[in-house]
C-alpha cells in the first residue's frame, strides 16, 4: 500500500484551497473527488457548464475559476471520478476508479466533503416532480436544464432564494415561493444584525436577491405553516396554510423544489467515529474540531461545511487553515510559522462567519418541517414512516441503532444519509431526551456501494 503525505477528499472550495496551500509548503497532495470535474457543489461543472451567460449563475459562481485553476497545478495528484468507499482510523483509504478498487494510505487527511441538504419530509415529498432545490440547481449548472415549469419553491434559506433568482434570470417560470420562515423569526434575528454587519457584502447580497425577486413580481408567500404535495403517481398540486389562517390554499404545479438549509455531511466522519456534537443553533451534528480543524483522531482534519455550515468563502479559508495544519503536522512548518500565517486567515474567517448567527436564527427550520408526521416517510429507501419510528420509541428504543434493527430504517442504499438526522430528532422528541443523548447511526463502510467483484479484485492485488 502506497503511503502519501496528504490526501484531500473533495474539490469544493475547502478542498481546493487546502490543496494549493499545502503545495505552497512543499507538500504534493493527492486530491480525490467522485465528480468528474472540480468545483464541489457551489462551483459544480464550472468548466463545462452550458450556462454561458454569466449573469444567470451570478458572479459568486464564476469566482470559483481561480481555485479550480490552482488545483490543476501538475504537482497536485488530482483524481476526479474516484470514489472513496472506505476510510479507517489508521488513515487507510479505499478508492474506486474505473471499476478498480485500490487502497492507499495517508499520513494526514483533510476531509472536505461539504454539506448536504437537510431533508424536508412533508406529506408527498417522495412523489415524482418533488425534488430538492439543490438538485434543481445541479441540473441547471451541469446540464443547463430545468425541471418542468412553472415551479414552486418551498422552504427557507439563502440557497432557495439564490436558486429562485437564477431560475428567474434563466427565464424559468416560478409559480410561487412558499416561505416557511416563521414570522417571529425576523424579530428574533434582529439582535444578530449588528454582528452580521461585519460581513455586510453577504447581507447586501441577500437583500439584493429579495429585491430582484420582488421587482420581477415573483409571488412570495410568507409565513407558510403547513405544506403538502399531492397527485396520483406524480405531483399535481401543492397545498399550504399560512400562519393565522386555517384554510388550505392550492396551486397546480408539475414541480416542487424543497429546501430548508444545508447540514454537514458527516457520513465519513461518522464512519471513522470521531467525536461529534449536536449543534443546537444549526440543528445538526458536527465533528468536534481543534484550532487546526483536526478531529479527535490523529491525522484526520475536516475543512469547510463538513465541520459546520460556514458557506463557500469561509470554506476556502478553512481549507487554507487545514492546509497549514497539514504542513505543521508533516513537519513542513514550525508551530510559530504556521500560527503566524494562520492569523490573518483566522481574522478574515471570523469576519466572514459573523453572519452565521443571523442566518441560523432567521432560517432555523421549525419543528413541523423536521419531524415528519405519522403517515409521512422518514426513510425513503426502506419506506419507514414517522409513526413507525415513534412506535419503536414506545417499545423502548432509545437510539437510532435500535430502531434500525427493527425497521431497517437507514439500512437502504443511502445508508441513512437521508433519514439519519430525522430519526435522531424523532426519537429525541418521542423519548423526551436530548438529540445528543439519542445519538446517531453507527455508520459502516462502504460509503458508496462497491460490487463484490470490485472488492474481490482488491484481494488479488492486495
Amino acid at each position, binding site marked *: 500500500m502506497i503511503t502519501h503525505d496528504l490526501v484531500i477528499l473533495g474539490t469544493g472550495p475547502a478542498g481546493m484551497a487546502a490543496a494549493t496551500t499545502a503545495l505552497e509548503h512543499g507538500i504534493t497532495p493527492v486530491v480525490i473527488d467522485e465528480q468528474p470535474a472540480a468545483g464541489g457543489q457551489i462551483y459544480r461543472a464550472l468548466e463545462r457548464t452550458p450556462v454561458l451567460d454569466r449573469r444567470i449563475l451570478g458572479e459568486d459562481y464564476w469566482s470559483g475559476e481561480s481555485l479550480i485553476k490552482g488545483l490543476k497545478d501538475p504537482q497536485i495528484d488530482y483524481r476526479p471520478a474516484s470514489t472513496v468507499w*472506505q476510510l*479507517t*482510523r489508521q488513515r*487507510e483509504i*479505499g478508492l474506486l476508479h474505473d471499476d478498480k*478498487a485500490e*487502497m492507499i494510505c495517508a499520513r494526514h487527511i483533510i476531509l472536505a466533503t461539504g454539506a448536504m441538504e437537510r431533508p424536508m419530509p412533508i406529506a408527498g415529498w417522495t412523489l415524482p416532480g418533488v425534488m430538492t432545490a439543490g438538485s434543481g440547481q445541479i441540473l441547471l449548472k451541469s446540464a443547463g436544464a430545468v425541471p418542468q415549469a412553472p415551479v414552486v419553491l418551498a422552504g427557507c434559506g439563502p440557497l432557495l432564494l439564490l436558486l429562485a433568482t437564477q431560475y428567474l434570470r434563466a427565464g424559468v417560470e416560478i409559480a410561487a415561493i412558499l416561505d416557511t420562515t416563521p414570522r417571529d423569526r425576523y424579530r428574533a434575528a434582529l439582535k444578530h444584525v449588528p454582528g452580521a454587519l461585519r460581513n455586510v457584502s453577504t447581507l447586501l447580497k441577500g437583500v439584493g436577491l429579495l429585491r430582484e425577486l420582488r421587482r420581477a413580481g415573483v409571488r412570495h408567500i410568507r409565513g407558510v405553516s403547513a405544506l403538502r404535495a399531492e397527485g396520483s403517481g406524480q405531483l399535481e398540486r401543492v397545498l399550504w396554510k399560512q400562519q393565522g389562517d386555517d384554510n388550505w390554499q392550492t396551486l397546480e404545479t408539475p414541480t416542487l423544489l424543497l429546501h430548508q438549509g444545508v447540514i454537514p455531511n458527516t457520513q465519513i466522519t461518522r464512519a471513522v*467515529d470521531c467525536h461529534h456534537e449536536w449543534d443546537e443553533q444549526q440543528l445538526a451534528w458536527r465533528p468536534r474540531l481543534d484550532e487546526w480543524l483536526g478531529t479527535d483522531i490523529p491525522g484526520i482534519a475536516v475543512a469547510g461545511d463538513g465541520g459546520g455550515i460556514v458557506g463557500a468563502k469561509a470554506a476556502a479559508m478553512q481549507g487554507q487553515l487545514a492546509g497549514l495544519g497539514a504542513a505543521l503536522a508533516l513537519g513542513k512548518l514550525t508551530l510559530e510559522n504556521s500560527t503566524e500565517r494562520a492569523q490573518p486567515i483566522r481574522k478574515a474567517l471570523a469576519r466572514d462567519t459573523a453572519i452565521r448567527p443571523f442566518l441560523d436564527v432567521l432560517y432555523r427550520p421549525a419543528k413541523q418541517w423536521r419531524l415528519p408526521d405519522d403517515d409521512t416517510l422518514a426513510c425513503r429507501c426502506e419506506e419507514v414512516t414517522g409513526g413507525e419510528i415513534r412506535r419503536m420509541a414506545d417499545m*423502548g428504543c*432509545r*437510539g437510532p*441503532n*435500535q430502531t434500525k*434493527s*427493527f425497521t*431497517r430504517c437507514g*439500512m*437502504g*442504499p443511502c*445508508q441513512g444519509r437521508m433519514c439519519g438526522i430525522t430519526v435522531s430528532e424523532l426519537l429525541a422528541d418521542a423519548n423526551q431526551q436530548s438529540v445528543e443523548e439519542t445519538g446517531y447511526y*453507527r455508520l*459502516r*463502510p*462502504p460509503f458508496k*456501494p*462497491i*460490487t*463484490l*467483484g470490485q*472488492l*474481490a479484485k*482488491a*484481494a*488479488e492485488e*492486495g
Partner: protein
Amino acid sequence: MARRVVIVGAGFHGCSAALRLSLQGYEVTVIDKAYAGRHASGVNAGGVRRLGRHPAEIPLAVAAWERWQCMTDIVGDDCGFRPVGQVKVAENDKDMAILADRERQVRDLGFHHEVLIGRDELHRRLPALADHCPGALACDGDGFANPYRTVTAWRREAERQGVRFREGIEITAIESKGNGWRLSGGGEHFDADLLVNCAGAWAGELCKWLGEPVPLTAEAPMLMITERLSPFLGTVVGATSRPLSFKQFENGTVLIGGGVRGDVDSVRHVAETRLDGLAENADTVVSLFPFMKEARIMRTWAGVEAVMKDHIPVIGLSSQHDNVIHAFGFSAHGYQLGPITGEIVADLAMEREPKLPITPFSIQRFQTPCPE
C-alpha cells in the same frame, strides 16, 4: 437459597439466564455497559447452525435447536427463525473426503443431523452454485434468525417476569460482601447472593477480578451485506476449507461472513473491519457464485466476540467461588446456543445436575496444566 442474582452482560446469554432464573423465583438484575444486544448478540450473522459443531457442543446445539422450533411459546416471538437448512460445500475431492470423515464422526457419536450429499443433489438445491463443487454436507432444519430481534424478545419476556435491566452502567469492580458480592459501576453498587458472568468479550476481566484468569481473546468477526437481489438462495451456505457463510434473507439481501476477522479497538471496545479479509471473503463468494460479481455491497461491519483458546465456551460454576456462574466465550457460534444457556444456569443456581453435559466447558480446563 440465594435470592438476589446479578447478571453482568445483557447479550443473548445474559437475557436467557435472566429469564430462566426469574421463572424460578430469583430476583434478577441484568447490568450492561451499553444496551441489551449492543455487542455480539445483536450484530451477528444470525446463523442457527448445528452443522459442523465441536463434538462437545453437539448435545447442546441439538437441544437449543429444539427450543428454536418453539420460540414463540417461550418468548412470544419467533425471532425471525427460518429453518431453511444449511450446507457446507466441498470445492474439490480433498474437501469431499474431509466432509465424509465428519459425517462418520458425527454418526459414531449417535447423531444423524449431518448428511453427505453428492453433486446432483447439491446442484439441485443450489442451481446458482459454480460447477466445480462435487458435493456437500447438509443439515436440514438449520437456518437463521434475526439477532437483535431475538435479544429484544428475550429481554422483554424477562422484563415481563420481573427482571430489572440496567443499561449504560459498566461494572468496574467486584468485591465479596458477606456471603455474596458487591458490584460497583457508574457510581452505583449492586449487591448479589449470586453472580452470573455473561460479559461476552469482556468476561475475562471479571474472571481476573474473581481470581481465575482464562485465555480469552476479543476477536472481531466481519460481515457484509448486499443490496436486494431476486431470490436465488434457498439455504444457508458454508465452505469446507475457507471461511464462508452466506444466506439470503426474505427481503433479498445477502449476508456474507463466516469467520474472517477484523480488528478490535481495545480502547473504544468496538470492532473494525479490515479490507483484506473482506476482499478475500468476496473472492470466495465470487468463485462459488460467479453471478454475484455484480452485486453491490451495502454495508460491512464487525462485532466483538469472546474467543477461547480451544474454541468452545466456558459454561459452569466458578472454580474459586460457590456463588459465581460463568457463561461466556462462545467463540463465534454462541447465538444458536442462546436458548439453552438460561436453563443450564438455572439448574446450576438451584444446585441441580444440569440436563445437558457441560463438563467439557468447565473453567477448570484452563487451570489444570495440560501435559505438553
